[in-house]
Every structure is written in C-alpha cells, then in structure tokens.
C-alpha cells in the first residue's frame, strides 16, 4: 500500500457490500399474466456489486476504474446514499457532496442566480454559506453578467460551468465525481483540476469515476479496478491503470 501516514479515522468504510438489481421483464398486469401462463420468468436479478470491502481515508484521491457495467457508478451511488446496499454496510464520516451529473437540479426557467442558490441548497448548504460563497462561485464559472439571465438561454458550456462551479464550492468532506470532468473547454478543465487538487491538499477525500485515464493519473494516487462487480485491484494508480488495460470486459 502506498499510504505512508494512516489517518486516525477513515472517511469511507465499505464492508461486505453487495448490490443486486432486479430486472422486471413485464410492465403491466397483462404481460405478467401472459408470462405466468407461459411459465416464463417475470424477473431476473444480477449482481452489480459483490462483496466489496474498502476503506478510504482523509486526503485520499481514489479513482474507480473499470469498463462499462463493472459497477463503478453503482458503488458511487451507494456512497452518496442514493442507493442502499442489499448486504453489508456503507459508512461515511462528514459531509458528502456529489458531482454526479452536474445540473440535475437546474431549472431552465430560473435565472443563474436562483439556480445557484437552489442547487447549493440541494447539495446541503445553508443560506449563510451560499451567501458567503456566491461571488466566488460566479467568478469561477466565468458567467459574469449573465448570472441574472434565465439558464435556458445559456450555452451548454456556460450551463455546465455554472453547475460545476456550484458543486465544487459546496462545503464538503467527501467529494464524489462521476464522469463530469469531461465537460467544458481545456482552460476550464485545467481550472477544475487545480481546484480538485486544492481540495485534496486541504484534507478532503476524493472518489472519482472516469474513463479518462490520463486525467485520473494526474489527480489520483490510488486506483481501484472493478470487473463485473468485483474489486480486482486496489493499489497505486499507475499499476491500477496497467491492470485495467490488461483485463477484458
């Protein structure tokens, strides 16, 4: 393990976690009835994650790697609390903020300003916290004078910049990132990376899912490789990337 200084308390504990999805093949009473008559299966289940054990400490930047369908996003959603494990347990310490699909809470008919307040509140900030950081958020997003324009008139780049800026300025201890760094132009991406590094340096925990291996290599120190719901590698990021390249879907 490349971790030299083990922090006294971890930030995320994942213990024996299993997540099973049940897929229903019928969507109406009629279909269910016909399937039952023909003795076909009404539903199948598959394990998105099986028996994951994991501990993440403070100030750690961890990358979750794996091909499509390996269970990366499911694991992230378990940590954020959107999903609950079917077995085992997930524990977190401190405030968790998800940069998961930025702009999920944006309303096109509201102005940029109102959306900033709404989304920061959705991410768990109080009014005083948002007031204190509002200028910083707007400045980071480079929206400038358009902050009082309705969001539906924004270009897609402006939209994403504002959403990302809100998320990254929330008060947090654990930051979850799911494939959102692919947004914005190159200068903005650089700015985001710098901001994330700053957070990690300040003792925040970063948990990131991405297919952008070069960016992950830049930001993270530890890599986890998932394959079909199983954790197949946990170690230094460069080795993890090599491992990922060696396995098949």
């Amino acid at each position, binding site marked *: 393990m490349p971790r030299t200084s083990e922090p006294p308390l971890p930030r995320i504990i994942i213990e024996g976690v299993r997540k099973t999805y049940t897929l229903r093949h019928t969507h109406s009473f009629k279909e269910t009835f016909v399937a039952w008559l023909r003795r076909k299966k009404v539903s199948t289940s598959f394990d998105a994650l099986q028996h994951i054990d994991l501990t993440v400490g403070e100030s750690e930047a961890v990358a979750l790697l794996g091909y499509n369908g390996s269970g990366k996003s499911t694991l992230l959603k378990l940590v954020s609390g959107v999903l609950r494990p079917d077995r085992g347990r997930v524990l977190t310490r401190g405030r968790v903020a998800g940069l*998961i699909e930025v702009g999920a809470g944006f309303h096109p008919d509201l102005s940029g300003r109102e959306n900033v307040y709404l989304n920061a509140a959705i991410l768990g900030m109080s009014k005083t916290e948002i007031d204190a950081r509002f200028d910083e958020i707007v400045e980071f997003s480079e929206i400038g004078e358009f902050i009082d324009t309705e969001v539906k008139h924004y270009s897609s780049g402006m939209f994403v910049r504002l959403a990302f800026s809100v998320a990254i300025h929330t008060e947090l201890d654990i930051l979850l990132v799911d494939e959102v760094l692919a947004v914005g132009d190159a200068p903005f991406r650089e700015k985001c990376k710098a901001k994330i590094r700053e957070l990690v340096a300040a003792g925040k925990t970063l948990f990131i899912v991405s297919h952008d291996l070069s960016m992950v290599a830049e930001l993270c120190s530890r890599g986890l490789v998932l394959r079909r719901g199983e954790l197949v590698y946990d170690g230094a990021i460069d080795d993890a990337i090599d491992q990922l390249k060696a396995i098949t879907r």
Partner: protein
Amino acid sequence: MSKPDSVDLSAFTVPGTGRGVFDVFGYRYLLRLLVRKGILTRYHGSALGWAWSYVKPAAQFLIYYLVMGVFLGLNRGIEAFPVYLFSGIVVVNLFNEAFGNATRSIVNNRALVKKIYLPRELFPIADVFIAFVHFLPQLTILIAVCLFSGWAPSLVQLAGALLAIVIILLIATGLGLLFGSINVTFRDSQNLVELILMFATYTSPVLYSFQMVENKLPPWLFDLYMMNPVTAAVELFHSAFWFPTTSGSAARPEHLWLISALAIVIAIVALVVGQLVFRRLEGRFAQDL
C-alpha cells in the same frame, strides 16, 4: 488496512438514511427554495401569470353555479347558494391540488432522486406547500365575496376554518406520501389518485347539502359519509364562510367538532401510514425510476 471493527464508528453515518418527515425541518431553507421554484415557474411564460389563479376558480364556480344552481335547481333550500358552493369548492380544490401534485412529485423530480441523496419527503411536502400558496388567491376571492354578502364570523368559526386547512394539508401529505411512493414502481397509482380526486367533489357536500344525503342514506352509511375528513373540512368552511352570511336558520351538522376531531385523527393516521410506506419503498426509488 485498518479493520473497521477496531475503528470508533460514532462519527460515522450510513448514507441514505434519514429521519423521514422530521428531516424536513433540518432542510427548511431548501424546502423554501423548492416552494419558491414551484411558485415562480408555475405560470412562467404566460402573459396573464398569476391572474390564472383567479380565473380558473372563477370559471369553475360559474359552471357549477349555472349547472347545479340554475339548471338543476339544487339551490332551492340552500340560502346564499353561490357562497355555499364556492366555500366548498375551494376546500376540495386545495385537497385535489395538494394530493394530486404530491402523488406525482417523486416521479417529477426523478432527475434529482436518482442522482443526489436528499430526504425525499421534501418533494411531496414542497408540493403541498405550493398547493397551499395557490389556495390563497381563492381564499381571498371567497373572503371578498363573503364580505360583500355581509359576513361577520365569530372567532370560533374562523378557528374552524383554520382547522379545516390543517386537516386538508395533513391528509393530503399523508396520502401523497403513500401514493407518491407507490407511484414510483406502479404508475397505476397516479391514475387511481385521479379517480379519487374525481370523486372528491361529489363525496363531500359541495354541490348539495349534507341533509340531502342524510335523507337518502341509512344512518350508519351517513355516519361513514360524515367521517370523510374532506367532508369535515368542507363543513367547517361552510360554518365559517357561508353560514354567517345567511339568516342563520340553516341546519348545520350535529357534532361538527367531534367530526373534525375525528378528521384530525384520521389525517394523522394517514400521515403515519404514508410515512411508513414511503420509508419502506424509498430504498428502491433510485433504481425503479
């Protein structure tokens, strides 16, 4: 790697678990913003804007008045029939709007429910608040009409009106949590609710008087009819707004306070059941949406 068993777990929380509706108090600011969003975007892009909140109930009132009062002659025997009609309609409108919107709220907010953990009770509760805000213009018209008809209510009657609003908001929240959580997996739920809402206007004494029901139904069935919390709220509104504008000779239901107390109990039971079912199903929201 540190063994989790050896770690002091007191500082840790399990993500995705909350205290249900009580968590909403902790998220007051977000609730306020969600309600504000609902109100601001409601009539967005319409030239008349909030005037629609006045036009719609007025049109509804007019149609009921023409059909029920003038064509069917139901106003015979009911003094000040227009006021009677309107004071009942606003209560049922509040119930329909609050319950209907709360039922669809989780599905409507699926983008958020799937991505970010929040106490999900916030969404139906915000919708109930929004419905309440839309009820206020109707209440204003009602009060204006009543004042015009020489309205002088007693404090007790006004307290009754307040109680009626509380009953409706509680029962709409409870039923909204119940049907809203089922609606995630089975969209049949919202169709069933539409059916219930269609009945709501007719299963309470809005378009007719409670005596017409009393005369036709056996006593036990009439008691059941009066146990409907919406009926209690409608009658409380009649007592507060319509009755003071009449000569005071009209019959009022016996034991109206008892019926109202029962309505409060039923509403609280609905809230508890709704919350329990909601919590039970909540774990599947993100994967079923």
